[in-house]
């Protein structure tokens, strides 16, 4: 291609810069407000954000792994393990929260580390490695608890997922989980888009060989990506456990939802492209879809069908745009 063509494409690219996920989200929110004007009240949108928080955090972590060229299927079962583990360890002792929360975050990092090590050094494709991890962690959660939750989560632990800050001007109240969401997503977005780590995550997902020959510590970056995903899983677990209490299948299905959210946000499967804010947008859009279908009173099967269609359509549209713009 000549340089003239380069400039042409570049110029045309600038027009549709806005990520379609935000358009989708805006349309969905509009529809929700139309269906249920109460959504414009703080109770409406704060509940929505509170509910979306675990998935959004999970998607923000998942987008690291996807951008680095992998998948992390283990986050769902990690959530379960965090919730079950925390209930076992705290055993309704409010004082235990202060060491259990860091421990759970450490466990998330540890699971991510293990995923990364398996992918980097045993050379197992991440799809299989994290699938194995998913099965193993679910089994561990059951083994640890003997198949049923054995303890309660004290209110101090549930603080993050359940409590609100009341009497806030303008919005009346802010759930703690929304604050956690903002902090975590802000941090992950900054890491991804403003730091060397983020650029290198993109590089190793784009071309691991070239990145390695350019001196990028490929394994270290990849392991870090898995660890951030693990960490986001642990945080999501703490929020979910806080929101709704203990059960042995809290996390099931979250891994696919997180991947879906990241993909809705335009993350390229197999690596090289991904945005944390857009993945969060994807998570909010997904939650908005569920909420909307709920308001419409559609039964579960219809929700599945809609989710499936949107998933395929989003990716097909992205591919179409990519071909059109020649990028």
């Amino acid at each position, binding site marked *: 291609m000549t340089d003239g063509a380069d400039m042409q494409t570049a110029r045309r690219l600038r027009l549709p810069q806005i990520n379609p996920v935000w358009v989708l989200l805006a349309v969905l929110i509009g529809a929700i407000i139309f269906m249920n004007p109460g959504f414009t009240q703080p109770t409406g949108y704060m509940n929505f954000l509170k509910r979306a928080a675990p998935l959004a955090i999970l998607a923000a972590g998942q987008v690291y792994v996807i951008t680095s060229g992998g998948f992390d299927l283990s986050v769902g079962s990690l959530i379960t393990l965090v919730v079950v583990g925390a209930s076992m360890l705290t055993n309704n002792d409010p004082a235990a929260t202060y060491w259990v929360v860091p421990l759970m975050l450490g466990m998330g990092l540890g699971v991510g580390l293990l995923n990364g090590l398996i992918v980097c050094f045993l050379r197992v*494709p991440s799809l299989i490695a994290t699938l194995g991890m998913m099965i193993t962690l679910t089994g561990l959660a059951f083994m640890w608890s003997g198949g049923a939750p054995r303890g309660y989560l004290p209110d101090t632990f549930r603080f993050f997922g359940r409590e609100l800050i009341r009497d806030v001007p303008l919005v009346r109240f802010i759930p703690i989980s929304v604050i956690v969401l903002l902090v975590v997503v802000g941090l992950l977005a900054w890491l991804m888009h403003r730091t060397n780590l983020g650029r290198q995550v993109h590089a190793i997902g784009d071309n691991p060989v070239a990145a390695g020959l350019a001196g990028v510590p490929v394994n270290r970056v990849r392991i870090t990506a898995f660890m951030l995903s693990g960490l986001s899983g642990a945080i999501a677990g703490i929020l979910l456990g806080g929101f709704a209490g203990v059960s042995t299948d809290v996390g099931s299905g979250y891994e696919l939802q997180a991947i879906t959210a990241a993909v809705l946000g335009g993350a390229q499967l197999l690596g090289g492209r991904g945005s944390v804010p857009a993945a969060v947008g994807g998570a909010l859009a997904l939650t908005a879809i569920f909420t909307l279908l709920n308001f419409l009173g559609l039964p579960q099967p219809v929700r599945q*069908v809609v989710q*499936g269609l949107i998933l395929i359509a989003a990716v097909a549209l992205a*591919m179409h745009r990519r071909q059109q713009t020649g990028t």
Partner: protein
Amino acid sequence: MVIAVATNQTQYLSLENLIAILGRSIALGITAIGQTFVILVASIDLSVASLISATSVLASVIMDGAPAMIVPAVLACLLLGAFVGVLNGLIVSALKVNPLIATLGMSLIIQGCLSAFVSNFAGSVPEAFQIFAYGQIGGVPVALVFLVLLALLAWGILRFTKFGSDIYAAGGNDEAARFAGIKTGRIVVLTHVICSVCAAIAGLYLASRLRSGAPWIGADGVYDLESIAVVVIGGTVLAGGRGGIWGTMAGMLIFSLIDSAFNIAGVDSFAKQVLRGIIIVAAVAFYAIRSKRIVA
């Protein structure tokens, strides 16, 4: 696993036992044969589990206990399988949607459509059709014979036909294959059809075995992820272009053996799950660690 087998060796190695072990995973084996085809062209199919549920229900509803309806029911199931396969294949090859996402979406759609209409066992399978799952030929279950024949057929296709050669070409290097005049899009669609038809057959088998179809039997058996695990354990690479049927059959055998051995050794089902996860990773690591390729 080896210890478990060894300690129970005397009773474990009877012919009856071996057949029982092989018979455990017929549905998984049939599905995995189909899955091998799509993975060879560097695609993947996550919709098999829902399709298995859908076809088992479809078969048992159409048959509804009447032997005369067996043929139409089987045809309808195979047609449904082919239809889903064509859709999957077209979404992957024409719309260029990542196969993981495409078939995941398809899986949700199938499951949704299915659950919209049935929520429990529906219809029933006539005695005559139960021969598929329960019949025996000289002491060997019909289904096992069928599985072996299906594997032989798949092997023959991959080894001796132009189509088989095209599959390896499309999976190995899509562009090279296209420039050699191979319509790789069509190959991808065809392998998806094979995969979905195999899943439909697995659905028929399960309908025959359970005497009826229910909308959860595919998901309960985790046939999507397990069939992929079996194929990958069998040495077929996810990137496509390398692998084969016998590896898949060996993978299936390993899964059956694990199950049986754990049962006999009385391993608690939670520990069993942990071990299963580790075995999947270890088996793939065993192949992967020798190759120099960077994976992600």
